[in-house]
């Protein structure tokens, strides 16, 4: 009997200790692993970007950092998952422009603007108007002139119908007064092969992927879509200098579920900002030509940027007939 009593007391004592530890530690966020949900598959653009940031972030955090890929539902499945977790700052969603487009007409019960708080915008990519190297069009003006004379005869390729790729193609050409035919393909590789093979006129695509082929003369870029010229292509004019009021680009940001305590968001913001300065991440920025314009935006600016982009996407999608 006596031994049992001692045993029970010892057990209670231990339980008390453990609970004491856990309650005292809960005050100091973070006390367990932080999970980054990447709503795309392994090896894609979003995945490699998230992993590059995480590489710099790991040494700065005292807790483990786990990257979980949750592809499916056009990037909405991972978003829905994070929206259903507690708002405690342990689940971080890797957000891309496709979530902003989804916010116009949500596919799931989660909506980015309503259910998430931004930590920061991390990257802001640059797109370019790219055509075949031996194309008869020498400048963007040639292309626009042809397009205005022959509505719908310019055929431009992209990847996601109703998504970023179609929006940026159609919206850019709308800004210069041309109606193009958008032809969706499955991957960037197929698009580039189709342009080089002369099956399609060109594409409005992120610049970094096409640079090697541009340098080899197989493709050529008529304009980069940005406020200033891109350092990697100093001879190619930018859209702003051609008088085109269109500078949108693909963005990547990280965010948490709405209602996460502000001090935890601030903690994440500060530590991630530091991680953007480590050499591993800087090399990633260099390799992917993301240095042309500043990617980083603080939480408040990111929210404003999101709101503006969603307004813009709503208009474009209305034009295209995807939403009424």
């Amino acid at each position, binding site marked *: 009997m006596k031994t049992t009593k001692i045993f029970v007391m010892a057990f209670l004592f231990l339980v008390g200790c453990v609970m004491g530890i856990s309650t005292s530690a809960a005050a100091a966020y973070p006390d367990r692993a932080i999970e980054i949900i990447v709503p795309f598959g*392994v*090896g894609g653009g979003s995945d490699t970007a998230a992993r590059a940031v995480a590489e710099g972030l790991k040494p700065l955090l005292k807790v483990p950092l786990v990257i979980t890929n949750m592809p*499916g539902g056009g990037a909405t499945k991972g978003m829905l998952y994070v929206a259903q977790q507690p708002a405690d700052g342990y689940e971080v969603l890797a957000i891309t422009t496709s979530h902003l487009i989804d916010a116009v007409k949500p596919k799931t019960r989660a909506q980015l603007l309503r259910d998430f708080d931004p930590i920061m915008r991390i990257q802001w990519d640059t797109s370019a108007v790219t055509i075949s190297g031996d194309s008869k069009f020498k400048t963007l003006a040639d292309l626009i002139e042809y397009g205005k004379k022959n509505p719908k005869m310019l055929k431009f390729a992209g990847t996601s119908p109703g998504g970023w790729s179609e929006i940026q193609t159609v919206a850019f050409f709308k800004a210069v007064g041309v109606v193009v*035919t958008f*032809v969706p*393909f499955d*991957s960037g590789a197929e698009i580039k092969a189709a342009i080089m093979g002369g099956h399609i006129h060109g594409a409005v695509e992120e610049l970094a992927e096409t640079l090697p082929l541009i340098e080899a003369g197989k493709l050529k870029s008529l304009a980069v879509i940005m406020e200033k010229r891109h350092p990697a292509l100093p001879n190619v004019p930018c859209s702003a200098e051609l008088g085109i009021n269109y500078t949108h680009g693909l963005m990547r940001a990280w965010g948490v579920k709405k209602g996460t305590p502000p001090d935890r968001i601030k903690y994440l913001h500060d530590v991630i900002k530091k991680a953007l300065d480590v050499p591993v991440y800087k090399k990633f920025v260099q390799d992917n030509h993301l240095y042309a314009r500043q990617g980083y935006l603080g939480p408040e600016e990111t929210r404003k940027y999101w709101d503006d982009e969603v307004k813009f996407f709503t208009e474009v999608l209305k034009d295209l007939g995807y939403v009424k």
Partner: protein
Amino acid sequence: MWEHYWNAFAIVLLPQNILAMVLGGLWGLLAGALPGISTSMGVVLLLSFTYTMSPITAFCMLVAAYCGGITGGSITSILFGIPGEPSAVPTVIEGHALAKQGHAASALWIFLLSSIYGGIFSVLVMMVATPLIANFALKFGPPEYFALTILGLSVVSSLSGGSLLKGFLSCFFGLFLATIGTDGITGGERFTFDTTLLLGGINFVTAMVGLLAVSEILIEAEEPFKEYKGHVGYRGMRAEMPEFSLYRKNWFNVMIRSPIIGTVVGALPGAGATIASFLAYGEAARTSKEPEKFGHGAVDGLMAAECSNNASTGGSMTILLSLGLPGSNTTAMMIAAFMIHGMQPGPMLLSSRPDIIYGIFVAMLLSNLFLLVLTIMAIRFFLELNRLPYSVFSAAIIVLCVVGAFGLQNSVDDLFVMFAFGLIGYVMRKFDIPVAPAILALVLGDMAELAMRRSLLLSLGDPLILVSRPISAVLLAAAVFSIVYPLFKKPKLLQGL
């Protein structure tokens, strides 16, 4: 050019590079053989180990892992009947049938020799004709892709076994399945019932594992009620060594036709290994002297599919190295590897870093040879599994299927899909409806539809674009021929009904 090759051989044969190839090859074999780890995932995992290596050592390892993964996948296909990639479907159908008859070792020999030959053939072609193949591949626009997929679908007539009608029934079921999910041209949702489960369409690997592996176990599970079946048993590798005459009989199929199909089709981004292996398999079925054996362990079918499947690695690398375009998931990972080592894959690489490009050619050639030895050693262990009683063995296979389907996207949804297709496959088998055409149609249906609609967008709605271009016209004519020909050969269309 030749001094580049001599230099490349000298570098690749350094001890550390040989070690890298052996380790990479073993890792690839393991990753390919384990359901749940795909070849591309195997390469990704390996990538982080190569950061600190010299570029050429890193590529020796990665290239060996790539080739190993494709080889390893076939081991699982033959022994367990679980296809890891859609291109392995013919291997499952013929190879696993042979294994169930107790000729696992024989099937493995045939697969191994044909696939290594296919791999080496394509590397040799790649060494001399990279620019030629790359330029030819660029001639394939949407109309040509459409014609190619239709030619792929025409293989149905050879896959149908007894009854063409049942074959087409299965094929149309697959085509219907291919329409489920987000429409690739307008982005609209089709048959998704407002769930995210079906938004991405039916993943063909999950469907395939269900239709082929799970359904087979369900069928076998009926057996214990009748009589106890012991283990399949096997004869050792030495006893099952194939005779030379087997290869002499099939020299044209294996030596020439299948690897050429594999190399050329493998170079097309977005078509790749799947169409390659099905086309070669279909050609073998059409010209076979024993067409009735197809579906029940046809040796020539297995040879053709494996040879062409592995030959597609060379084609895929061709387009990657000459233009920087990844033809498959795994070669997309290679792009990451180039960037880690400070290179941009693309047309410039051949002139700026010939040492790397020629090094990769040589590494692919040698790793295929190393793999031959490695696989023969590894196969012994896998073969031992065939000693297990079938009741235990099949339980293990179900576990592997579940792990494999879950591992694709870390999603339980895929498991529902897999088991649903297990039941569908069970019913189909009960009615003697072949499952292979459904899988083929599911994989190719999506490609065919998109290619056709892309073509029509390009021609602003004029359907003549599909037949007015020379390559597509020839391919479509071949497709029509291959559907109509069996009708004349076997006039009893309703045979088997």
